[in-house]
């Protein structure tokens, strides 16, 4: 055991220097050099240079004129990007049933179209940046009415921000909520709030 003392301690010190500092810092340097936008969090800035959000991090949108995201369990009010969380409610949990019921009732007030399942479920992270194409489609009339815009144009704008499965095989079709809302504001500018 004593003979192992030196290699045990020395190796932990060396590994900590190599793997705990050199490796992450080296990768950070290379990443910032080669892919600065991605390495910095794929942040989106407005014309004035202010950070509006990240391409990958979902945000809360309540206004009728915006595409609304999925419900979120991150933080107290949802979409807390420093406190990611799913609901972790099991399939028989009464809180889940009550939440889905209330959300579905509110959504039925907006449209008669069938409710897509992602519109009444929280994501694993609570920060899902996407909604399903069906969920976005269901919101077209509301957005168009709020912005006094033709529904077909809103629809086209959503389609332009829809991605299919990667290589036709991996993942599901999806609509990036923040990208759509930025495009909506660019196409139909709204009064400064």
């Amino acid at each position, binding site marked *: 055991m004593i003979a192992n003392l030196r*290699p*045990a301690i*020395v*190796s*932990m010190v060396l*590994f*900590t220097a190599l*793997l705990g*500092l050199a*490796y*992450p810092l080296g990768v*950070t340097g*290379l*990443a*910032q050099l080669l*892919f600065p936008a*991605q*390495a*910095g*969090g*794929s*942040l989106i800035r407005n014309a004035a240079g*202010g*950070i*509006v*959000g990240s391409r990958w991090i979902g*945000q*809360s*949108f309540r206004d009728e004129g*915006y595409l609304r995201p999925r419900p979120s369990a991150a933080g107290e009010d949802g979409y*807390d990007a420093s*406190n*990611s969380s799913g*609901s*972790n*409610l*099991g*399939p*028989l*949990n009464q809180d*889940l*049933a009550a*939440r889905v019921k209330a959300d579905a*009732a509110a959504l039925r007030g907006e449209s008669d179209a*069938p*409710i897509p399942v*992602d519109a009444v*479920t929280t*994501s*694993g992270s*609570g920060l*899902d940046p*996407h909604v*399903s194409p069906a969920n976005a489609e269901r919101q077209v009339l509301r957005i168009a009415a709020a912005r006094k815009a033709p529904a077909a144009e809103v629809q086209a704008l959503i389609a332009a921000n829809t991605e299919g499965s*990667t290589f036709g095989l*991996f*993942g*599901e079709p999806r609509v990036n909520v923040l990208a759509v809302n*930025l495009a909506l*504001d660019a196409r139909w500018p709204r009064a400064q709030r």
Partner: protein
Amino acid sequence: MDWRGWAEIVFTIALTVAVGWPLGIYMTRVWTGERTPLDPVLKPVEAGFHAALGIDRNKGQSWLGYAVALLAFSAAGFVLLYALLRLQGLLPLNPQGFGGVSPHLAFNTAVSFVTNTNWQSYGGETTLSSLSQMAGLTVQNFVSAGAGLAVAAAMARAFAADRGESLGNFWVDLTRNVLYVLLPLSIATALALVAAGVPQSLLAGVTARTLEGADQVIALFPVASQEAIKQWGTNGGGLFNVNSAHPFENPTPLTNLIEVVSLNALAFGTVVAFGRVAGARREARALLAAMVILVGLGAAAIYSSETLTPQPAMVAAGIIDAPANMEGKEVRFGAAASALWAAMTTGASNGSVNSMHASYMPLGGGVAMFLIQLGEILPGGVGSGLYGMVVMALLAVFVAGLMVGRTPEYLGKKVEAREIKFAMLAVLILPLAILGFSAVSAALPAALESLLNTGPHGLSEILYAYSSAAGNNGSAFAGLSANTPWWNTTLGIAMLLGRFAYAVPVLAIAGAIAAKPKLAPTAGTLPSDSPLFVGLLVGIILILGGLQFFPALALGPIVEHFQVLAAAR
């Protein structure tokens, strides 16, 4: 479910094996000390390590010497990580300004990473500083995986030996596996992940002003570098609370593919390397086939459960044609990529998740739990999956030997009482730790306060937690609030048992195997490379796992499944 989902599952598993195969051929060179393309860069570093450690690289160790070195190294790692976490508040690289971690959480987290479990009692972005993440967790991600690979290399040499005593040198194996295998793979993967959208930043975070005028604080980290080794090393402990479901850890289906392949490829590669070093390539292929069959069946079962079981909450709200259970799942992954990840992470002792298992339908979550309980051998953790599978193969030939009444052999070595005793010792650790601690927790009011869900789902939360800990998996039914003294301590003990009370008997088996003469196969030898043997092995794995855990599973996921069917009617 749809054809695309099935195609994604089949193609991803095939791709993982296809990536693992050449890796295994490369690892053979690393284990045997032959030349590799990376020698010009790494040879001097390796020599420097040997000199600083003061070891003679040509001096082999007996199984006991090897085991003691493994334990000494893990103990040193534990002490350092524990100190780092406790003193976090006083140390630099803490832009978030977090204080020290509580004693029981530091114990749990240190054990968790030293044992390659990476159970997350901590909430990454709310508890741990950048220094703790990098110098603490990332280091253990590498070296705990390197230690697992070292034990696998020792096991391979035991079967190659003819009346030998040495299993190799732990320090040499550890250093080579970290430097030549884990580090280059991680650097390449980290950069690929950044290119595909994963952040790598030393900032604590940024504040965004949303279009609706609200402030959103976005936590940032050096994510990609830890994500890469977390997957390759079958560690699984995430930077963020929700692990690879977090869009910064896993923003696109492409990053998901990279991560899920790197989750299992090295464990498959270990089997290939084992076969080459032990001189048993065809037999290693049989082990690989058993792994692929079982993890494939697991993925199919979870995908079916998540898409076919009616969800009572949806039915009650009048949403009748829901194509899948999306609670706790990300839109970009959907049911197929989530179910596949769930099977691969629980079969592999990785424990990272890209969806929340706690919100799975009962059978989906139950299958994930069952894959852990089968012993983390499908394909298991890097190194640990291989040696666990060899233990199962020894039991399989032993059972077959009992049936025909002759002394069993495996890979040219007689399997006798000593090996089987140690094998039984190893496989009994899982039920002892899982069922023992679950039984106590289910009766302890202080433990039950941590449950989010009640009834059978609550029991599943308990069972899953101890399965995950003892199996060194690390995934969770995250409804359980495990950051309490009781859970942190008992889960920590379960992790220690699952790692070291397993690895030490395995090394004892390797020592006994190495000392035996290498026999040529005779007409009476059960061929261990045939489909018959694969079937026997699969049967042994299922019966051992099923018999031990079925009663507990019947009270948890299985009864809950029938409750769900009744509630959804």
